Every structure is written in structure tokens, then in C-alpha cells.
């Protein structure tokens, strides 16, 4: 059906210069719309290519059109029988003005953000290393001090109680002995916090916290030395700092996607939880184990302690089946997965020296460190 150019449709027209609305008639020509006043004088012409919907049309309203090259003018065609002609001459009008552009754009932008997300997931860990190394040590230590406070709170532990001078001195001596076997810019600050929980953690800046539950659980000083060496291994390999950078990367991604939702305060505890739940990758744990084994060997301390400590947990869990009562074991296992593989990996290393960590008096001092 070719357009019948003599058919007129009723419409209202505003020219975008003033709010005035004029009663007009619209004719459909091959090249475009012609708008005429009541004396059949043409007011304006719009090419079909320029015509677009001013709003999504629905059955109970006039069809509102605008011209994409002019900002103001609007045409409201009250005679809806023009639709047939429009479909013939301006088929592009069928599609909803908003969704057409939107779908294309958000696909592109969605792809961009996917790239950003992939970067955070895969690229950031690679970047985290050099980034971690460039943070000034003073900053790291300050941040680490803050993390110690936060994580200690999460464990419900009290780090003010375990300050028995003899025990503190023995612990420091043991730390220094282990630290002397490696070349690292970190100055280790080890402390014990009173808690029933069996765990230990390391934070940026060289802070290591051992919870008193772990000391109680240990049978020999070599076990404590093993755990200490393991945590120091995390510090030396900068795992806590890298994890911090990683956590910030995620937080940035989420903020970029969803806007701020008061989440900056949660970042601190979020990162702390990161440490607590030891979502360290197996790679990180294996690295810390390797470093610990090396340090123990060089300090002439048997690594049988580290092994027996882990095995103790495995055996207890097997014996008890589902945990009843003492669930500190299960909690420890939950945060330290793949214990079996790690035990085997440590045992597979060259045989360890037979040396002891500390003598019996000092061991007693450590056990009494919380008074």
C-alpha cells in the first residue's frame, strides 16, 4: 500500500519555542511527515529518518512523536489510524526508544566490567606482590596493629592478660632464633591472647598472634615452635599484605558496581574475617609450610612438632566422628583444610634435625604466660 498523501490525521503540535499547542493535521508523504495548519498551509516537514517516538505508545493515548534533530517540537497524533501508514513508511518506530539503545550499550559496558572483574580475580593477585612490597614498613606495621585489634575482638580474645614477663621473654627469644634464619625486612612482634580458641594468625607488618587455646592444646614446645614458624612464614612471604590488597580490590569492584552502602566500615572486619577464616589458598599454606620447615631446619629445631600438631587434630576428628562438646578441633580443621596433604608434604622433605626448641623451664614459662 503506498501512502495516500491526501489523508489527513488530526494532531496537536507544539513548536518547542513556547508552550502553545496548535491544532494541526498530519499527512504522510514518501519522504516524511507534513504538518499543516487548518488552512492547509504547511507548517513543517519531518523526514522519516528523523521521526522517533517521544514515548512508548499505548492504546489509550495519542501517538507522540518528536524529531531527533530538533530538541523542542512535539507532535501528538490523536487519530491513531495513522499507525498503519507509520508501519509502512517508518518501521523503525516499532521499537521502544529506550530499550534499543540500552541493550547495545549495556552489553558493551557489561563486557567492560566483566574485564574489570576478571582483572580483580586473576590480575590482582599477580599485581599484589609488587604492590605489597612497595608499601612502607611503618604503614604496614600500623595497619597490622589495627588488624590485630580487630581480629582479636572477633575471636573474643583478650590480649592484655598474657604478659607474664618470663613467658614473653622466652617467646621473644624463640621468635628471634627463628627470625635469624631468614633475611627479611620484617621485625616480628609475637604475642599471646587469652582465648579458648585454638588458632594463630599473622597480620601485615610482622605481627603474629597465638591464641592461648593453642598453647594449651600443644604437648611439646616443638609444636608451638612449628606453628610459630608457619605463621612467620606467612609474614615473610607477605601473605597478609597481599590478602589485604586483594580484599581491597574486591571491595572496590563491589563499590564500583553497586555504589557506596556504608560498606567501608565493613571492609576492616571483612578483611579480618578473611584472615580468620584462613581463606588463604592452598598455595599460600603450602608456601608457609615450606618456609617453616626451612626455618626450623636452620634453627636446628625438629619439625616433628608441626607434623604431630596437625596429626593430633586429624586423629581427634576421626575418633570423635561428629563433634560433640569440644568443637575447637572442628573449628581449627575448618579453617585449615587439606591437613592430610600438608602433613604428607612436610614429611616428604629431607629429614629434620632432632633439636629441641626450648628447655623444660622455658616451656613451663610459656605455658604459664597467661598467668
Amino acid at each position, binding site marked *: 500500500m503506498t501512502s495516500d498523501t491526501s489523508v489527513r490525521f488530526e494532531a496537536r503540535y507544539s513548536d518547542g519555542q513556547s508552550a*502553545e499547542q496548535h491544532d*494541526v493535521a498530519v499527512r504522510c508523504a514518501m519522504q516524511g511527515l507534513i504538518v499543516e495548519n487548518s488552512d492547509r498551509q504547511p507548517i513543517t516537514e519531518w523526514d522519516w529518518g528523523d521521526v522517533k517516538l*517521544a514515548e512508548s505508545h499505548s492504546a489509550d493515548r495519542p501517538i507522540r512523536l518528536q524529531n531527533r534533530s530538533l530538541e*523542542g517540537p512535539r507532535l501528538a497524533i490523536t487519530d491513531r489510524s495513522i499507525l498503519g501508514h507509520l508501519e509502512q513508511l517508518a518501521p523503525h518506530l516499532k521499537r521502544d526508544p*529506550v530499550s534499543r*539503545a540500552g541493550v547495545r550499550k*549495556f552489553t558493551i559496558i557489561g563486557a567492560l566490567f566483566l574485564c574489570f572483574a576478571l582483572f580483580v580475580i586473576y590480575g590482582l593477585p599477580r599485581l599484589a606482590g609488587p604492590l605489597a612490597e612497595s608499601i612502607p614498613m611503618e604503614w604496614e606495621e600500623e595497619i597490622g596493629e*589495627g588488624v590485630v585489634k580487630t581480629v582479636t575482638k572477633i575471636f573474643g580474645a583478650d590480649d592484655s592478660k598474657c604478659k607474664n614477663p618470663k613467658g614473653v621473654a622466652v617467646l621473644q627469644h624463640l621468635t628471634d632464633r627463628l627470625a635469624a634464619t631468614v633475611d627479611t625486612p620484617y621485625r616480628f612482634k609475637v604475642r599471646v591472647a587469652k582465648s579458648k580458641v585454638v588458632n594463630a594468625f599473622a597480620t601485615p607488618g610482622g605481627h603474629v598472634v597465638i591464641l592461648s587455646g593453642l598453647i594449651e592444646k600443644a604437648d611439646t614446645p616443638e609444636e608451638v615452635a612449628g606453628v610459630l614458624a608457619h605463621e612467620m612464614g606467612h609474614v615473610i612471604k607477605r601473605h597478609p599484605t597481599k590478602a589485604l590488597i586483594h580484599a581491597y580490590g574486591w571491595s572496590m569492584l563491589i563499590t564500583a558496581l553497586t555504589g557506596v552502602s556504608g560498606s567501608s566500615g565493613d571492609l576492616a572486619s571483612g578483611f579480618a574475617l578473611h584472615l580468620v577464616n584462613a581463606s588463604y589458598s592452598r598455595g599460600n599454606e603450602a608456601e608457609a609450610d615450606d618456609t617453616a620447615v626451612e626455618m626450623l631446619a636452620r634453627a636446628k629445631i625438629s619439625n616433628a612438632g608441626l607434623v604431630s600438631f596437625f596429626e593430633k587434630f586429624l586423629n581427634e576428628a576421626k575418633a570423635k566422628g561428629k563433634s560433640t562438646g569440644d568443637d575447637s578441633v572442628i573449628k581449627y580443621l575448618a579453617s585449615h583444610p587439606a591437613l592430610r596433604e600438608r602433613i604428607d608434604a612436610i614429611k616428604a622433605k629431607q629429614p629434620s634435625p632432632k633439636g629441641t626448641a626450648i628447655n623444660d623451664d622455658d616451656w613451663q614459662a610459656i605455658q604459664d604466660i597467661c598467668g
Partner: protein
Amino acid sequence: MSEFIENGNITPEPVAQASDDMVNEQPSYAGRLGELFPIVFVNMLLSIVTLGIYRFWGKTKIRRYLWSRVSFQDEPLEYTGTGTELFLGFLIVMVILIPVLLLNSFLQIALQNKPDVFIAVQILYGLAFMYLVYIATYRAQRYRLTRTSWRGIRGGMSGSAITFANKAFLYMLLTIVTLGVMYPKMQVALQKYRTENSVFGDVNLEFDAPFAPLMKSWLFSLVCLLTLYGTMGYFTYEFVEAIEVKPGQAEVLRLVVGFLIALTVIGILAGVAMVWYSAVVIRHFVAATKFEKLSATSTMTVGQLLKVYIPAYLVYGGLVVLFALTTAMTSGGSDAATFLILPIIALAVFGALIPIIIINRFIAAFCANMTIAGAFSAALLLQNQQDKPGYGEGLAEALEVNAL
């Protein structure tokens, strides 16, 4: 006031008369939930799939629908904004904001053992945040006004977001210092600044509201609120006293249930008092707003406002109760997770729908209660010539100032 300026170029047939038409009618709202729900659902799904990016286009779609369903003199409003503009605004703000947020997080962790500095930093951060929210609100309104048109004529907004935020800040201090009594003064001052800077075409709106009548209503609702909170404090005290005597289990149950009922009733009454004051403010502000020779009145009552909010919240409350019951009934069972999934989804979905339900009802009630009357000459209302911002609302989006 407005001079008779002759239109230039494409002049159609001579206008009937350049004299005023008498106007006395209501804006109409033709929006329906049935048409809004599909838009909101699709927005939700697409936003999830695109990790949230789609929300700018989704918002644009909703606004286009809502604007187009509000009409005056049979001519609908038009929203000419685009999702791209919102997205760009957001990106620009994010570039500045993210480093600031990171800095704040670092400080939060690092200052753990210096509590005084920590608290000072937190207070500063909170104040800065509030200041930014005011700036964001003003700029968001400017964006929306410049993207609203009627009969092709565009809105606009002059004034400065910083001036607005400064005013807001100072008035907020005044309100706090007077323990809330001077709140109406703040409301009037801010609304005046916003309204008198709002432009449609080449005409500024005017705002003329003495705050004394508003103050009377405010004091009344303040007294009500204080009485209610006082009563709540009394009940709490009595409850704690009764519990400390360690009565039997049946007695404890009775006390707890009684206390909860008392709290709920007080909460409802407090809510009604605040909604009552909101209705007063709406009527007062609408009556104070003028557009050249047009004025407006609102007959919005507390009852109608309550009808706007209550149904949605009732249904939501019902779903919460259902969820709680389901949890209680299936706790202990290992199939609890499967039972809970349906109520959780229902809760989440409905929760996401509540804002649009309330907005829909509010616009309907607002239009139904508003009458615009006076003299209006369409030919003399000329197009707005101000520059309009190229992108919009980045700060409002970043700070999550409003949902719509």
C-alpha cells in the same frame, strides 16, 4: 511580569489570542502497577546478569513510564534523560570517590589503637558524608528538572548545590542545637531555595510560606512523639523491673508478649504522628508554590498518606511473619534450607517491589489531591535557555540517595 515576545521562525497560524486562559484542573495520573511490575522485574533480572550495570537504563525506563503517565490539560510530562547520562555521572563520581573510600578504610584499620583520632576521623567522615548527600540531592533534582518537559518546554534549575548544602548544614546544626524544635524552619528554608531556583520554560517558580503555622503543627507532633517515647521508656523500665524479680515462665511469657504489644502500638502511633505532620507539610508547601499566575492547592490528608504506605508494609509484614513461622516450624530439620528458599525469595522479590508500589500510590494520591488554578498563557511560556548538565546524578547514585 512576562513580556510579550514574538516567536521567531516557524510561526504557525496566528495564535487565537495572547490572552490568558483560565485554568482550574487537576493533574491526572494514569500509571498502573500492572504495567510497572514487568518493567521492575525485567530491571531486576537484567541488573543481576550485568552485575548491576543495567540499573541506570532500568531507572530511566521506569522514569519514562512514570513521567509519561502524569498529564496536565491532557498533555503528558516527558522524561528525556538517558541511561548513558546516569552511567557517566556515576563513573565520574566513582573515580573520585573510590580513593577517598579506600583511604577511609585504611584509616579505620590503622587507627584501631588510637581511639581518639579514630573517633574524630569517623565524625569528620560522617559530616562530610551528610554534606555530600545534600549536594547530591540538589544536583539530582537539577538533572531531573532539565530532563522533564511538557509540550516540548524544558524545566531547569539555577542556584548552586554548594549554597544549598551550606544552608542545609547550618540549619541542621540549628535543629540539633534546639533539640529538633526549629526543624520546620529548616524545611521551609531548604524548600524555598530549591523551589525558587526551579524553572519551567523561562519562568521561575515562587515560594512563599511563613513557617509559623507549620511550627504549630510541628510542636504538636513533637509533643506527641515525646509523650510516646516517654511512655515507651516507662514500659521498658517496668518490664526490666518485672524481669529482674525472676518470675515463672508463664509470667515471663505474659510480660514479653505484653511488652511487645505495647511497643508495637506505640510504634504505630508514632508513625501516624509523623505521617500526619508530613501531610501538613505537603499541603503547606503546595499552597506556597506559585508559577507566574498559577497557584496550587493540595487536599492531601493523613488518612490518604497512610493508605499510600500501609498496604505494602502490611503485605511485607505478613511475609516476614510467614518466614518466621516457617523457620520456627522447620528448625532442627535438615530440610530446613529447602523450606526456607521459597519464603526468602518471596521476601526478597516483594521487598524489591515495595518502593515502586509506594511511589505509584503516592503519585496517584498526590495528583488526585492537587488542583492547579489561575491564569495561564501557553504562548507566553517560552523555552528554557539555560545550559543543562551533560550527565547526571553520579553523586546521588554513588551515595544511594534515593531509590527511584
